[in-house]
């Protein structure tokens, strides 16, 4: 029953689409199976209230430039409504500060902080570029094979070539926490708070958690032509990115089927033989690529019995507790943020007024509670893109932390209270926000898990940290995208180099799959 020529891709999120496009361009027969009625997953643009649209992933900063070029995304409808967003660190008293790529401005900032900020950006950009190079690689195995040793040697060499001082600094800070580094470099609390937020967004960590410098670097590791970590808003929302990817895949001959949820991966003997859909339909294929997260793929779709116990146990232990909620507000006009001019509302606004505030916000989630005073990353994409809301009206899109996947009281109990908490915090900075709100959507990690079939509702399909990066992501012996069951691969954010709308996991997986398939043909 095996159609050895066909490649099935489970999940039409951005990595699945990128993988499909590369495989199809190389002449493979590809079918993408997407459970939802549109592709894109957490990077789709969805209508959350009549006339109002938003995407779970709302800022583009990691998209691989090579993918944009290879898949001609620009010519397939992807345009950026705004690039080079500043970050405005909101203060309750309206004395905000504004962070740009190498300057920081605002009331009460010491000259030392301005200088330190420039230095910080310079060194962090340099370190992030090194991680960025790793993003493009299939992680090497830890073996004595010459190929693997050379790859490892190259990494060591590149680290050394940063120069003595930078190499020392890189080695010193990458594994430690952002709190200590920021305390060492800066005085201004608002500045430190805002910078620390970049290190903890989307993860189960606080500024004092270990290797949060690494997470900050990862966020800056994109390879677009702008400054490191440059923030963009795509026209039409993030769905425009995935729509362009889907168009590239289809143009290359890939078939995309929506509204067909995969129930399980079929195994014949010890070889992948296809998938079975929720409808009961079985589709034969010699190669199945899962864009679902590692846990869902192994424990849900495949079944742990098809791999050895220690391997299954490692998957089961992947840390993937989602901790971020997503808020979408439909507004009947621009809200008033104290101290901000209307033209500033198109920037990225953050509520992370100091390091301790962020750490305290995290404390709750350790004990199964949501933050009493959450941190937020806020955008109003409709400022740049009128297609997202009816004329004169606006959309507020915010990542809200911390909201643990496992809430003690359960989210059906807790969601309304959390919404009130979030709105109360928001009102401190935008007093008219409640009056402006005509509809809202709050997606808790539980909602994200159920809506997008992602274990733990985790953006990155698994914590992004040093212990789950490179050849350790998702786990040893699966970090090269191939699973132990012949013909089964992973291509999602749960693999190296992780989440954010980057696409590199899908691209790297396609590389491996093509190489395996060419090898098997000869």
């Amino acid at each position, binding site marked *: 029953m095996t159609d050895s020529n066909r490649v099935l891709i489970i999940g039409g999120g951005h990595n699945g689409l990128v993988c499909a496009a590369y495989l199809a361009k190389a002449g493979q027969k590809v079918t993408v199976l997407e459970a939802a009625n549109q592709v894109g997953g957490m990077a789709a643009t969805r209508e959350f209230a009549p006339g109002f649209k938003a995407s779970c992933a709302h800022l583009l900063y990691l998209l691989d430039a090579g993918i944009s070029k290879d898949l001609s995304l620009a010519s397939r409808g992807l345009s950026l409504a705004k690039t080079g967003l500043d970050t405005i660190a909101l203060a309750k008293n309206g004395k905000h500060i504004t962070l740009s790529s190498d300057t920081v401005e605002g009331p009460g900032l010491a000259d030392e902080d301005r200088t330190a900020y420039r230095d910080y950006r310079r060194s962090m950009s340099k370190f992030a570029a090194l991680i960025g190079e790793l993003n493009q690689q299939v992680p090497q195995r830890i073996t004595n094979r010459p190929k693997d040793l050379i790859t490892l040697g190259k990494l060591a060499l590149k680290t050394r070539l940063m120069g003595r001082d930078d190499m020392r600094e890189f080695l010193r800070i990458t594994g430690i926490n952002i709190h200590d580094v920021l305390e060492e470099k800066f005085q201004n609390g608002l500045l430190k708070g805002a910078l620390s937020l970049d290190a903890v967004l989307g993860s189960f960590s606080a500024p004092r958690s270990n290797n949060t410098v690494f997470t900050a670097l990862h966020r800056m590791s994109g390879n677009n032509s702008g400054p490191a970590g440059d923030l963009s808003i795509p026209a039409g929302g993030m769905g425009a990115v995935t729509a362009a990817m889907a168009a590239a895949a289809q143009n290359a001959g890939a078939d995309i089927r929506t509204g067909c949820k995969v129930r399980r991966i079929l195994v014949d003997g010890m070889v992948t033989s296809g998938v079975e859909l929720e409808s009961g339909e079985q589709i034969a294929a010699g190669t199945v690529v899962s864009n679902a997260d590692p846990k869902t793929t192994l424990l849900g779709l495949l079944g*742990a*019995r098809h*791999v*050895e*116990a*220690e*391997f*299954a*146990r490692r998957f089961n232990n992947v840390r993937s507790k989602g901790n971020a909620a997503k808020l979408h507000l439909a507004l009947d006009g621009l809200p008033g943020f104290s101290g901000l001019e209307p033209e500033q509302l198109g920037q990225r606004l953050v509520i992370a007024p100091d390091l301790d505030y962020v750490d305290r916000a995290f404390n709750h989630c350790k004990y199964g509670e949501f933050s009493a005073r959450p941190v937020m990353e806020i955008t109003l994409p409709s400022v740049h893109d009128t297609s997202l809301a009816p004329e004169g009206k606006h959309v507020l899109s915010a990542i809200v932390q911390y909201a643990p996947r496992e809430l003690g009281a359960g989210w059906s109990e807790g969601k309304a209270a959390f919404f009130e908490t979030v709105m109360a915090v928001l009102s401190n900075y935008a007093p008219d926000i409640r009056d402006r709100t005509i509809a809202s959507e709050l997606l808790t990690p539980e909602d994200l898990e159920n809506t997008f079939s992602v274990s733990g509702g985790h953006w990155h399909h698994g914590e992004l940290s040093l212990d789950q990066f490179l050849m350790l992501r998702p786990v040893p012996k699966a970090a090269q995208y191939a699973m132990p069951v012949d013909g089964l691969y992973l291509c999602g954010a749960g693999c190296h180099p992780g989440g954010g709308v980057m696409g590199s996991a899908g691209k790297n997986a396609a590389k491996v799959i093509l190489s395996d398939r060419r090898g098997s043909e000869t």
Partner: protein
Amino acid sequence: MRTVDYSNRDHYLNAVYPSPFHSRQAQHNQVREWGRWADYQSVPAYWCTDMEYFAGRNACGVFDITPMIKHRINGPEALPYLNRLMTRNVEKIKPGRVGYSVWCNEAGRVVDDGTIFHLRDGDYRVCSQEHQIDWFLTSALGFDVEIVEDTHDVAGLAVQGPTSCAVLKGMGLAGIENLKPFGLTYFDFEGTELMVSRTGYTGDLGYELWIGPDHAEVLWDRLFEAGELHGIRAMGSRALELLRIEAGFILAGVDFLPAMEAVRPTHTRSPFELGLGWLVNFDKGVFNGRQALLEEKQNGSRYRLVKLDIDGNKPATDSYIYTKNGKLAGTVTSAMWSPSAKASIALASLEMPHGEAGEKFDVEIYYQRELKWSRVMAPARVVKDVFWDPPRRRQTPPADY
């Protein structure tokens, strides 16, 4: 008598328990020496190891196997679970049958060996030398299976030797003579269920009796009453050690290092390196260690476990083994003077490619005569067959001794 009273919240303070047979063992234990085996008090020798050994070979030796670690595995997916856990094809072990197996970790190294009793359809007992509950539960992810360690809930006696069948018949176990090797069956016994398997660790005719601990003492009494005219004798662990080496059976912690206890993973052994390649079935689908074992099969093993026949009469305990060129080739793992084979014999681990049958070595033996140490380089050769393998071991019904 229940071994552990779990209602007593301090039960864990007692690490080593008296066996359910303790009162009877104490009566027989003329030298009042006690040892420890796993979680139990056990008897190294009741009076004289040699006498107990000869009871096992020439009459009937009784050994308390309660301390053996026992697990009960059942539930709808017990078979697929066991097949993923074990290296051999467990499907071949039908209800009422027993099979020896090993289980490996991901590196293809032996975690432990043991016996799988297919008690009733889909209901299994797995006996092992080491506690395995953590490993078994870890391996259960994704299977609808129930796994408990029930060591304390089952009392066991090994009844081994040429008259063992006659003793059991005399005890009233009608039809026991028809039980085939590696078979198991049930009897009504004193108002409870007695399970008898034709299994053992002596390489001879023998049985193992399994019963609730409440009935342990009455089982012992009935057994010794029936065995009085058949030379029955309680046997200690030292005698059993001699019997198992003659039979060529390996022992965890002695002939190989259980993989989960290893600090130095290279010191562990694969099934191939223990001469247990026949237990590895690559055709049945995925199992723990499969990938690594497949690679080992292709690339070759590091060690080979062999049986040595050594000149002279001095046990080659812990000896180094040298090639005829004087190069170190391995070490002895178990050794003894075999009274039945009339030979100095050993189990040994040799570095590959050594260990083909017939290959000759010198074994460096240190021995003591009245506190004076001497050393001898004893010529030795690798033999293929086990040192003790009487036909009665396989006969059904066995001859009535």
